[in-house]
C-alpha cells in the first residue's frame, strides 16, 4: 500500500524513515493506525491533535506542567518483534548497571581487573565513598531504570543515555496513553497496542515490597521526595503521588531521629519506610553526601546504613549515569557476562587514553562532549590537552525520523525513545511503551505503541489509574506536614506585619508632608517612637523637627530599600517566596497578588508623593489579599495555620502600638492616641463607642479588652483559641495542644482582670503629660512574653518537633540510643 498522504520516502537528514520504506510503501506496523485514523484525510488527526493538547494542559496539575509542550496525536509505533529484541537488550543493560554499581560501591573489581581506569570513578563527584558503607540491604542498586535510544540509519537501535538516578517519564507515558485512548477510542481499539498499566501496578507492588522488608508490622509509609516542590512539582511527580496514593514531600518535611527517618506532621513524627526519590544523590544528605549544600535530609545516609529505610532508587545510582562508563561498557559486559551487548551502545571515548584523546581532538566538531560528571560541555582542543581525563566524547546518532502533525500536515521529525524498566523477581520488567521525544519547534512527547499485540488493555487497572488521576483523595486523616503548616503560619505573620507596617508608614509620611502647620508634631513623634520601639528607627526625641526630617530618609528605606533588613522590601519578597512554596495551597489569584507586591515598591529615593501613591496601591492590594484569604480559601488545617499566624501577629502589633503610650510619656509628651487608633484601624469604632477625645484607659480598653472590636487584642486571642481548639479536636489526640491552649487561657484571664482605669492618671488639661502607671508597661510585657511563649511552643512542637516533652505516638524516644 502506498502511503496516501504527502510524506517523503527519503528524509533529507539521511536518517531512517520510521513510517515509509524506501520503496514508498508504508511500513506494515503503521498501517492499522493510519487506516483507522486517516480514513477521511488528515482533518481528523489535526482536530484530535488539538484536543490532545487541550486535554493535556487542562489536566496539568501545576503551573510548570502548563508550559507549552505538544503531546502529539501520532504515537510512535514499534513492531512487536523489534520490541522483543529491544527488551532483551534493555534487561541485559539494566542488570549490567546494577552489577556495576554493586561492584563500584563494593569490591571495585572492575578497577582492580583493569576493566575500567580508576580515574573515571575516583575523583568523580558522582562517586560518593560514604555510600560504600550504606549499600541497599538486598544489594539491588537499580530498581527503576530508564534508557534513551535512537535508531541509526542502518535500522539498529543504539543506546545513547542511561537514566538511573531519578528516571522520569512513567507518569507522562501513562498520561499520554490515557489521553490518546480517550481522544481516538476507535483507533486505539483497532491498533490495540500492548498495555502499559501492568507495569505501573508492578511498580506499586515493588514499593510495598520494599516497605515490607523494612518493617512488616504496620501499614508502610511511602513518600515521594521531590526536589522541585517549591515551584514546579512536575506533572510526573504529581501523577505518581496521586496514582500511587502517596504524598509528595520536600526534604524539609523529613527529619532523622535516632536510626529512623520521620515525616514531620503537625501532630507528630511518622516513621517513613520507603522514599521514592526524585532528588539527586548529592542532595539527599547534607551531612554526609555533599558538604557544600544545605539541601537534603541530615542523617539520611545513617538511616540507610541501619537498614531502616528503602530508597528508590537507592543512593549511589548517580554513578551509573557518568558518560565515561559508556566508553568501557563493552569490556564491562564481557567481564560480568562473558558475552557481548545485545543492544549496541553509542560509541564513546574517554580522553584519559592517548589514542582516544587523539581521535576526539581530530573529530571534535562532530562529537558530543561531556565532562566527567556528565555535563555537556564545549571544550577547545587545548582544554582537552590540559586535562584529558576530564572529558568524554560521544558519537552523535543520525536519529531516525517519525511522523508528527505540524500545521495540519504530516512531517518527519528526529526522534529519541525513552524506555522504562523496573526490578522484579531478580530481574527487570520493561514497560511495553514509553515516550518518544521529538525535537520540532514545539518539542513533543509522544506515546510509544508496541503494535501487533493481541492483548487488550486491562480495563480494571486502567480504570483505577484513570480514577486516580482525576480524583483527589479525600482527606480523612489529620494530614498536614509541618513544613506546610510552618510556611502558612509565617505567611500569615508576614502578611499581617506587612499590612501594619504599610499602614503605619502611610500615616506618618502623609502627616509629615501635609505642611508645617497642619500636623500635630506629636502625631508624627508618636508613630516614629513606635517604629523606634519595634527596632525600625533609632531612639531619638522625635518632637525635634530635625530628628523628624532625618527620619524621612529612614522611612523611605524601611518602605523600599533592599538593603534594609526588615522593611517592606524584605517582607514582600519573603511573602512572594512563601507563596511560591505554597503555590498548590493558594488560588491563582491569591498567588498572583503576592507576586504583585514587590514590584509596587517605589525607588527609595522617590519623593514623598510617589511614596504615598504607591503605599495606597500596596494597601489596596493587601486588602484584596485579606479578602481573598477570608473568602476564597478552604477552611482546612493549612488555612488555620495562616489564620493563627495573622492573629498572633496582629496581637503583637497592638501591644507594640500601645507600648508607644508609655514610651512617649517617659519622654515627656502625650502619645497621639488618635493616630494610634487610626493606625490600628479603630478610630471609627472609638468614635461610635465614646464620641469623645481619646483617653488612655478608653483607648486601652478598646484595643485590648473589648471583645466586640475585631481589632482588639482579646479578639485575636479568642480567635487563636478557637483555631487551636479545632486542631486539637480534629487531631483526635488528647492534649496535643494543651500547652498552647493553657497559655491562651491565661492571656484571656489576664486581659479580663485588667482594670483599665488604673493604668494611667488622667489629667484635666490635655496639654499636661499623662502619668502612665508602671503597671501599664509590666502588663504589656507580660502579654507580649506570653504570646511569644505560645509561638515558641507551637514552633517547637508542630514545626520542628524538637521539644522533648511531646512527641507523636509513633516516635518512642525510649527506644533510641
Amino acid at each position, binding site marked *: 500500500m502506498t502511503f496516501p498522504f504527502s510524506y517523503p520516502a527519503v528524509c533529507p537528514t539521511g536518517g531512517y524513515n520510521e513510517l515509509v520504506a524506501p520503496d514508498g510503501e508504508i511500513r506494515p506496523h503503521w498501517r492499522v493506525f493510519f487506516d483507522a485514523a486517516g480514513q477521511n484525510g488528515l482533518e481528523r488527526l489535526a482536530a484530535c491533535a488539538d484536543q490532545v493538547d487541550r486535554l493535556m494542559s487542562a489536566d496539568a496539575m501545576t503551573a510548570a506542567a502548563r508550559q507549552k509542550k505538544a503531546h502529539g496525536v501520532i504515537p510512535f509505533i514499534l513492531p512487536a518483534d523489534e520490541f522483543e529484541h529491544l527488551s532483551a537488550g534493555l534487561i541485559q543493560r539494566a542488570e549490567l548497571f546494577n552489577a556495576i554499581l554493586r561492584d563500584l560501591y563494593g*569490591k*571495585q573489581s572492575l*578497577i*582492580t*581487573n*583493569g576493566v575500567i*581506569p*580508576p*580515574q573515571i570513578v*575516583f*575523583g*568523580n*563527584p558522582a562517586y560518593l*565513598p*560514604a*555510600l*560504600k*558503607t550504606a549499600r541497599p540491604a538486598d544489594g539491588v542498586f537499580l530498581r527503576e531504570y530508564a534508557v534513551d535510544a535512537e535508531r541509526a540509519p542502518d535500522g539498529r537501535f543504539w543506546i545513547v543515555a542511561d537514566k538511573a538516578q531519578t528516571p522520569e517519564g512513567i507518569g507522562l507515558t501513562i498520561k499520554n496513553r490515557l489521553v490518546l485512548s480517550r481522544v481516538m477510542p476507535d483507533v486505539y481499539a483497532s491498533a490495540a497496542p500492548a498495555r502499559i498499566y501492568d507495569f505501573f501496578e508492578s511498580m506499586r507492588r515493588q514499593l510495598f515490597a520494599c516497605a515490607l522488608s523494612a518493617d512488616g508490622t504496620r501499614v508502610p509509609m511511602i513518600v515521594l521526595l521531590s526536589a522541585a516542590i517549591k515551584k514546579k512539582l512536575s506533572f510526573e511527580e504529581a501523577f505518581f503521588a496521586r496514582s500511587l496514593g502517596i504524598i509528595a514531600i520536600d526534604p524539609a518535611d523529613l*527529619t*532523622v*531521629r*535516632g*536510626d529512623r527517618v520521620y515525616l514531620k506532621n503537625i501532630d507528630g513524627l511518622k516513621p517513613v519506610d520507603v522514599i521514592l526519590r526524585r532528588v539527586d544523590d548529592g542532595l539527599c544528605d*547534607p*551531612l*554526609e553526601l555533599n*558538604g*557544600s549544600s*544545605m539541601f537534603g535530609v*541530615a*542523617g539520611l545516609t*545513617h538511616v540507610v*546504613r541501619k537498614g531502616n529505610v528503602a530508597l528508590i532508587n537507592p543512593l549511589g545510582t548517580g554513578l551509573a549515569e557518568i558518560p565515561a562508563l559508556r566508553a568501557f561498557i563493552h569490556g564491562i559486559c564481557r567481564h560480568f557476562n562473558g558475552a557481548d551487548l545485545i543492544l549496541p551502545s553509542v560509541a564513546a571515548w574517554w580522553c584519559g587514553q592517548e589514542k582516544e584523546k587523539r581521535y576526539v581532538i581530530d573529530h571534535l566538531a562532530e562529537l558530543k562532549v561531556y565532562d566527567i560528571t556528565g555535563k555537556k560541555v564545549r571544550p577547545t582542543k587545548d582544554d582537552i590537552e*590540559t*586535562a584529558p581525563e576530564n572529558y568524554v566524547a560521544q558519537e552523535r546518532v543520525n536519529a531516525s525520523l517519525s511522523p508528527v502533525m505540524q500545521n495540519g500536515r504530516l512531517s518527519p521529525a528526529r526522534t529519541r525513545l525513552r524506555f522504562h524498566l523496573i526490578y522484579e523477581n531478580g530481574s527487570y520488567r520493561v514497560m511495553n511503551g514509553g515516550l518518544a521525544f521529538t525535537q520540532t519547534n514545539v518539542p513533543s512527547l509522544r506515546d510509544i505503541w508496541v503494535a501487533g499485540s493481541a492483548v487488550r488493555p486491562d480495563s480494571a487497572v486502567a480504570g483505577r489509574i484513570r480514577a486516580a488521576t482525576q480524583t483527589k483523595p479525600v482527606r480523612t486523616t489529620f494530614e498536614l506536614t509541618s513544613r506546610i503548616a510552618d510556611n502558612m503560619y509565617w505567611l500569615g505573620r508576614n502578611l499581617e506585619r506587612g499590612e501594619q507596617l504599610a499602614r503605619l508608614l502611610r500615616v506618618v509620611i502623609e502627616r509629615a508632608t501635609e505642611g508645617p502647620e497642619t500636623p500635630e508634631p506629636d502625631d508624627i513623634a508618636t508613630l516614629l517612637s513606635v517604629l523606634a520601639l519595634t527596632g525600625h528607627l533609632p531612639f531619638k526625641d522625635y518632637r525635634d523637627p530635625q530628628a523628624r526630617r532625618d527620619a524621612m530618609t529612614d522611612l523611605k528605606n524601611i518602605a523600599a530599600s533592599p538593603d534594609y533588613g526588615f522593611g517592606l522590601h524584605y517582607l514582600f519578597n519573603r511573602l512572594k517566596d512563601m507563596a511560591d512554596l505554597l503555590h498548590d495551597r493558594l488560588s491563582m489569584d491569591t498567588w498572583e497578588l503576592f507576586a504583585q507586591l514587590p514590584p509596587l515598591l517605589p525607588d527609595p529615593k522617590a519623593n514623598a508623593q510617589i511614596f504615598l501613591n504607591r503605599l495606597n496601591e500596596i494597601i489596596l492590594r493587601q486588602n484584596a489579599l485579606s479578602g481573598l484569604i477570608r473568602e476564597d480559601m478552604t477552611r482546612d488545617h493549612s488555612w488555620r495555620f495562616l489564620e493563627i499566624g495573622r492573629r498572633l501577629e496582629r496581637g503583637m502589633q497592638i501591644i507594640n502600638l500601645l507600648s508607644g503610650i508609655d514610651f512617649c510619656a517617659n519622654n515627656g509628651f502625650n502619645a497621639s492616641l488618635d493616630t494610634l487608633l487610626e493606625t490600628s484601624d479603630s478610630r471609627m469604632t472609638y468614635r461610635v463607642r465614646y464620641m469623645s477625645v481619646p483617653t488612655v484607659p478608653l483607648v486601652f480598653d478598646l484595643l485590648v479588652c473589648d471583645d466586640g472590636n475585631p481589632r482588639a487584642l482579646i479578639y485575636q486571642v479568642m480567635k487563636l483559641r478557637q483555631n487551636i481548639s479545632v486542631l486539637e479536636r480534629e487531631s483526635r489526640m488528647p492534649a496535643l495542644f494543651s500547652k498552647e491552649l493553657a497559655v491562651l487561657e491565661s492571656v484571656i484571664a489576664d486581659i479580663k482582670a485588667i482594670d483599665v482605669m488604673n493604668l494611667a492618671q488622667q489629667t484635666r488639661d490635655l496639654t499636661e503629660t499623662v502619668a502612665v502607671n508602671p503597671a501599664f508597661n509590666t502588663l504589656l510585657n507580660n502579654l507580649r512574653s506570653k504570646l511569644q511563649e505560645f509561638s515558641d511552643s507551637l*514552633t*517547637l512542637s508542630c514545626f*520542628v*518537633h*524538637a*521539644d*522533648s516533652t511531646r512527641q507523636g505516638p509513633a516516635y518512642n*524516644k525510649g527506644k*533510641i*540510643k
Partner: protein
Amino acid sequence: MTVTYRVRHKTVYGYGIPVTLSHHLARLKPRETPYQRVLSADISMTPEPSCQTDETDAFGNTATFLIAETPHREMTIVSEFTAEITPPVYPDPEQTPAWERVAAMTAHPDTPELTAAAEMAAPSRFIPLSAAAKAYAAPSLSPNRPVLAAAEEIMRRIYRDFTYDPSATSIATPVDETIAMKRGVCQDFAHVAIACLRAWGLPARYVSGYIRTRRAAEAERKGEIEMIGGDASHAWFSVFVPSFGWVDLDPTNNMYIGSEHLTVGWGRDFDDMSPVKGIMTGGGRHTVSVDVGVRTVSPAKERR
C-alpha cells in the same frame, strides 16, 4: 620505646539564636594504626544527645553520629582518649621505588591495595587538580627520583617556603590560593603537599590528628624549637610507598611523624576528616572555641 598520651579536645559552639535541632558527625575518635594502640576513647556532648552512635566510615575511620533535640544556645563536644604510640620505622627514602613507577602502578592498579591507593591519587573536593601545585612540585620530581625522597623534599620545601599564619586562610581557602600566598596553617600545608603529589599521579592522603606541643618556656630552656600546631587539632599528609605502605610526613614541622603525633584518621582531604560537621535548625551567627590538651601519662596507671 612506647609513649602513652591522654588527649582532651573540647569544642564549644555558641549560637546567636537557639538551635532547636541539630545533627552532627564527629570524627574525633582515634583509629588503630600499626604505631598506635587506642586504650580508651569517649565523646560526650551537652546538651545530652538523643542519639549517639559510632560508625566506621568508608576509609575505616570512626564517625560518631549525634543528634541534639533540646533547644540550646551553646553546645559542647568533648573528646577524650588514651593512646599508646610506638614510633614508626620508615624505609630509607632513597631505597623506595621511582615515583614514575608508583604513578604507573596507581594508574593501572591490579590489587585491592593499589585500587585503594588509586582513590587517593584522584582529585577531591578541597584538592582539585592544580596546575600551580604541579609546577611547584616539578623540581622535586626529577626522573627516577625515589618516591619517598621526592615527598620528603616537597615537605621540606613547603616548610621552608610557607609561613605559618592562621589569619591568612580559612577552611575554604583553595590550594591554588595557598600556593600563591605561601601562607596558611597545618591543614593548608597538608593540602598543598597532597595536591603536589596527586598532580603527578601519586597517591597521597590527608591525616587528621594531634601533636604534642611543648610550652614555649620549656622549649627555650631546652634550646629546642617549639612545635607549631598546638592547642588545636593538627593535620599532615601521607604518601603511598608500594610494598611498604603509607608514610606520614608533617610539613608544618618538617618531620616524619614520630612518637609525638597522634592519628585520628584519614581521608581524601579535610572534608572527609572534618572533626565536627553539623546541620542545625536555628543557630544564626555562631562562634567556636577549641581547647586541646595533649599530655603524657604513665602507661601503668592508665592500664589499671
